[in-house]
């Protein structure tokens, strides 16, 4: 027994080593499978995390629009019940427009004003059954009767091709300064009153001209529009210019 002890110890050690090697090999296979499982979980969680962040951002934007709707209870806002999603922007360089995912079937009609929580976007220009086109206030064919909030002077904000809109028809003797806030005047019946349009960034006054001009920076960032609200209970007055249907 005593003589066999060293052998027993040696063999027992070898046996332990072999067991360790086998168990390591088995562990390795398990670890690989486990690693694959965890990798899948990480991928799923990463995707979930991205989706949640996107939902959080969208939620924040919708909350802003809701706040705007609550602060302006006089208007009935509709779009996917409340809000419309922008599905296309400026497909042509010669018309500043966006396309919404709501149309006649959702109660959208030509002439309805379109806003965000930051201010006026434009008005509904063409309506299809499931989508509609909005003519932005930056388009040269758009004219919005406006006033300077500080001194209530009226004018018209006209879009400009490829540059910022301009407020025209401001009397020569009127006092207008950079930073003045421009809002809709409601004159002409095309847009509701008191919607924010933008801020004056430049004033152009020439002695030989009848009126002053003010360049306006819109408060709405037209490049980053994702959701807008359509004011559905505002009816533009009749005799507004119709949209041109087709060539010829």
């Amino acid at each position, binding site marked *: 027994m005593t003589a066999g002890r060293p052998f027993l110890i040696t063999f027992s050690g070898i046996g332990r080593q072999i067991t360790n090697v086998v168990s390591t090999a088995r562990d390795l296979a398990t670890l690989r499978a486990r690693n694959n499982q965890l990798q899948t979980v990480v991928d799923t969680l990463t995707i979930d995390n991205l989706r949640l962040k996107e939902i959080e951002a969208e939620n924040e934007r919708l909350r802003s629009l809701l706040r705007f709707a609550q602060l302006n209870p006089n208007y009935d806002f509709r779009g996917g019940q409340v809000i419309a999603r922008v599905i296309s922007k400026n497909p042509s360089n010669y*018309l500043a427009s966006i396309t919404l995912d709501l149309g006649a079937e959702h109660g959208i009609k030509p002439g309805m004003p379109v806003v965000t929580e930051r201010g006026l976007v434009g008005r509904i220009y063409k309506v299809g059954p499931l989508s509609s086109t909005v003519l932005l206030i930056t388009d040269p064919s758009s004219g919005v009767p406006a006033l300077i909030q500080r001194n209530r002077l009226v004018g018209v904000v006209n879009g400009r091709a490829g540059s910022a809109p301009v407020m025209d028809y401001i009397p020569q003797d009127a006092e207008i300064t950079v930073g003045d806030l421009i809002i809709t005047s409601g004159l002409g019946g095309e847009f509701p009153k008191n919607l924010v349009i933008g801020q004056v960034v430049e004033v152009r006054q020439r002695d030989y001209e009848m009126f002053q001009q003010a360049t306006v920076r819109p408060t709405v960032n037209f490049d980053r529009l994702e959701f807008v609200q359509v004011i559905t209970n505002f009816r533009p007055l009749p005799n507004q210019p119709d949209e041109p249907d087709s060539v010829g």
Partner: protein
Amino acid sequence: MMGMANRTSRRFRLNRRDLTGIYLTAAVLTLAILAQATLLTRIRLGGASPNLLLVIVVCWSLLRGQTDGVLWGFAGGLGLDLVSGLPLGASALALMVTCPLTVLGKDSVFPGSLTLPALLVLLATPIFGWGVLLTKTMLGLPVEWLASTRYVIGPEIALNLALTPVIYPALRWLALHVRAGQAGW
């Protein structure tokens, strides 16, 4: 009997080529309009985005002849007008007007060179732009010719020229590898 069978077979082949041409036109133009309305509008220089449809029509006219170009211009222009909200026909007319420009490249000895398509795009962009503006003027819409030329057409030329080296080789590959029937009146 054999001759009749051959004639029928030839007619069948011709029909298939025609159908391939129609499918190709529909697929390329639909993709171009979708890309134009959703992706390319994110690229802005001054007041303009690249005009993919114009580049495609000009390059295709150069590769496959004016008739094909005019057909693509008409169909693509109508699609663009429907999506953009421009008066129906404005883009279609302006695109069709640019196609005769390809006469300049009819006898080109360097069909693979990018110089000619770039030159044609350079000329076609203002012609297209002024065509659309003219249509808008005729329809009584307010148009700013000078500002549009400076802030829209100018940057659009640069963007379209940048697009040409990508589009022309792709369409050239398509014209060589897809056996589509050529349009004829």
